[in-house]
């Protein structure tokens, strides 16, 4: 067995109810792996515990059960080896843009001189196109710019892995697109390993190598994995010219709309340790019969297979 860069084993978490007793597990029996340099996106409905999983990977939260290993070592707490981009940018408003990045850089390399820290921080601000705003305070920036500072801060400490918690959720469509492109470029340039949460199916297809689909909670699990088989050089502009895009998109939307509420263990042949990996993009016909080779579903599940996507292609 090859050694995966990140290995998540039997993770589970429950939150106490109003009476203090532990409630039902938000998610349990969650297993997955991430390889070095891979961009993995997790999607699922609100409340299935995506953010909790990310926080456990970051070391910010403790899981009730299970283990996370990164690079052969168990994750026991927050670490500089994992950079986090928070949902609400989490910039410190009393620091300048440069000050925010420098705070991270100075924490990563405490022995560096002030000048070294400054130069290194500026380099990463330049990377997200914000060198000119280095002296500004966060409140003077737009939402998109703030999130870019957050990304620069996370990249600046050269983490072994980057964790992104729905980083573009609060942005308008236009700035979202621009930052997605920037992120993609940086990730490709740095070969960064990334784990990201999103609610946006298009974002997932654009950025991910592999998409984890999570069923609804309680007892949420990873129901299946979708490999994005399109060329890694895809961009937002070329994305919708590729017929694969529609197949993958339909598959994902279909999962979220119909199949997410199905509890995976009720599907025959489901094994939480070996999540089915599907490649809907390569399914030229994308007929329900073809898909069955990839996902084995109980007979009653066949009725809710992905719909034909020819009409979507024609649209």
């Amino acid at each position: 067995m090859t050694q995966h860069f990140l290995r998540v084993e039997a993770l589970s978490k429950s939150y106490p109810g109003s009476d203090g007793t532990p409630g039902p597990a938000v998610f349990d029996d969650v297993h997955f792996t991430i390889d070095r340099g891979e961009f993995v996106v997790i999607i699922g409905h609100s409340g299935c515990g995506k953010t909790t999983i990310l926080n456990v990977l970051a070391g910010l939260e403790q899981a009730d059960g299970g283990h996370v290993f990164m690079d052969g070592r168990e994750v026991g707490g927050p670490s500089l080896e994992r950079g986090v981009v928070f949902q609400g940018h989490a910039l410190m408003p009393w620091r300048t843009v440069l000050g925010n990045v420098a705070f991270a850089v100075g924490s990563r390399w405490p022995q560096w001189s002030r000048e070294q820290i400054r130069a290194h921080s500026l380099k990463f601000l330049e990377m997200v196109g914000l060198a000119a705003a280095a002296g500004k305070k966060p409140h003077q920036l737009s939402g998109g710019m703030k999130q870019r500072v957050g990304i620069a801060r996370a990249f600046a400490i050269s983490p072994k892995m980057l964790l992104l918690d729905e980083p573009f959720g609060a942005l308008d469509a236009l700035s979202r697109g621009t930052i997605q492109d920037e992120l993609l470029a940086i990730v490709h340039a740095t070969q960064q390993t990334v784990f990201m949460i999103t609610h946006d199916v298009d974002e997932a297809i654009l950025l991910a190598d592999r998409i984890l689909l999570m069923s609804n909670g309680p007892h949420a699990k990873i129901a299946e994995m979708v490999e994005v088989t399109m060329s890694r050089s895809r961009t937002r502009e070329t994305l919708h010219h590729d017929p694969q895009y529609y197949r993958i998109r339909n598959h994902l939307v279909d999962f979220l709309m119909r199949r997410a509420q199905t509890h995976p263990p009720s599907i025959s042949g489901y094994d939480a340790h070996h999540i089915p990996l599907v490649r809907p993009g390569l399914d030229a016909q994308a007929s329900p019969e073809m898909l069955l080779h990839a996902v084995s579903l109980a007979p009653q599940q066949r009725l809710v297979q992905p719909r034909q996507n020819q009409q979507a292609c024609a649209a």
Partner: protein
Amino acid sequence: MRPMRLPLAWSSALLSVALFVLLVGIWQMLTLPKPSKPPPGVSAEYAALMGHGAAKSDGFPTPAQVASTFIRELRHPFYDHGPNDKGIGLQLAYSLARVGAGFGLAVLVALPLGFVIGMFPLLRRALDPFIQVLKPISPLAWMPIALYTLKNADVSGVFVIFICSIWPMLVNTAFGVASVRRDWLNVARTLEVGAFKRAFQVILPAAAPTILTGMRISMGIAWLVIVAAEMLVGGTGIGYFVWNEWNNLALPSVIFAIVLIGLVGMLLDLLFARLLRLVTYAE
């Protein structure tokens, strides 16, 4: 043609001056000497001989008398002619020194303690009953105990200032520290920032506006209390000055002192407003 508009700052200043003139005018009217009526059944001649019927003041100083006191006192603010006759500048300096000492001690205690209380919910809950009971006690109520235990009037004054200014600072510091945004703490955690750096570079700046607001409230209370405390303790200070002038029945001096107490209080508040603006951040 559009009517000419004065900028708001000018028109408000003009209105303030007008109000001031009006109030002084009313004061002047009320303190005008009034002719007293002769008592009934006394001949007018006799009444005139006894001084009745002449214009007579009721003793409350007129604006002019108070103004001359202002000029006289402000001309030599720092003279020192023994224990009962010192310039107003000296008296204010004594009061400010007491407030500064008491307030400074309170800062030294309230900030670290508030920090710890804010960080540990257990401690906050445990100490809350004490704070809630001690907070509403009038600081002057401590005076007898302070005098008995400290055996020094001057130190007791400082203690009273200390005890009255500690509560708003303590409560605000604890609240500010406890409500630092989770996100910022998480950033610090993922960056493996040490406890010391986290306290001074994340929590302190995040809570600084709340802490300084507490300090501003404390300073306001301390300046209110010092006058009363010095009236009790005696010896020096602006409160003692007021009491002394009352005993002399020198009401113009009392009014003069009242105005200066107000002005100094305003300056202290302005100072803290400035400091607050320095640490306030926009989100």
